[in-house]
């Protein structure tokens, strides 16, 4: 199948739909969600899916092979795109200690796509900032907050539950500073 010219959202939907068609439940997580929500302000090359059931890998390989993806180590590559697919992420979809409800599929150009909500996407990025002090992840969380409506109270509650209130305050300070800078320009 030709995948040239597809946006990340469309490509993710094509992959997700094919996996769902084969009986898997697949949820898009990680940097690709940031890319979709931050409207091109961030570039990722990974389509990270959390997939269940985990059965034999050959079933997933069959599904992805129908789209032209072939395995390369633990990822799947396609000649038409630089994006790679990773389906090795363990179920359930979670952000830190919080297990997420499986998102309902959305329709994207006729394909089903399940992906983290903007709020969960922010939490997902903040996990890396909270636990590994990853500044890139903080930047990604901020980009999503600047571009989309997120449940900041929910993020605050979740941060406290993760035992990360000081770092949550740091995130809020940085976000406020960026919002002001955006207003000025």
């Amino acid at each position, binding site marked *: 199948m030709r995948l040239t010219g597809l946006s990340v959202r469309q490509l993710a939907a094509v992959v997700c739909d094919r996996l769902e068609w084969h009986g898997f439940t697949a949820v898009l997580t990680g940097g690709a969600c940031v890319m979709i929500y931050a409207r091109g302000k961030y570039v990722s090359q990974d389509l990270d899916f959390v997939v269940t059931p985990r059965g034999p890998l050959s079933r997933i390989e069959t599904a992805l092979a129908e789209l032209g993806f072939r395995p390369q180590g633990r990822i799947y590559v396609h000649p038409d795109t630089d994006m790679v697919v990773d389906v*090795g*992420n*363990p179920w*359930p979809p*979670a952000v*830190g*200690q*919080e*297990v997420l409800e499986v998102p309902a599929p959305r329709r994207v150009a006729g394909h089903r796509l399940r992906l983290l909500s903007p709020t969960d996407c922010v939490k997902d990025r903040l*996990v890396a900032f*909270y*636990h*590994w002090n990853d500044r890139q992840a903080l930047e990604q969380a901020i980009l999503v907050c600047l571009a989309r409506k997120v449940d900041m109270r929910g993020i605050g509650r979740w941060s406290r539950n993760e035992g990360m209130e000081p770092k949550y305050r740091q995130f809020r300070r940085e976000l406020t500073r960026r919002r002001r800078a955006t207003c000025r320009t």
Partner: protein
Amino acid sequence: MTNKSSQQRTAILGPLLGSELREWILLCLLTREEVYARALAQELGFALLAVQRQLRALEDGGVVYSRLRGRTRLYRFSPRYPFRRELEALLNRALEALPKRERERFYTPRLRPRRAGKPLPR
């Protein structure tokens, strides 16, 4: 493949986890925070390959994550694992249930710093 040191350890969660080695690896992770395969293999008395296989399975399941430091791959509990707190609580209970001598073996080697050149107490 096991040797004498592994046979002298008690496994409490082994039936639940499907492997005594996995239990001991998890207990080492709990008490040390960071482990690497070769040291675990030597300490637990298992073949390096067996330890690596368990660590890889735990990593695939999202329970631990790894990163390279030099040529050594170090493993830690993953903060992204949603059942980490519950797992740590279970492991703590298992650790408490071990005979004192065995429990203390999970607390070695010493983790607090000691000035270079100062001999370690025997």
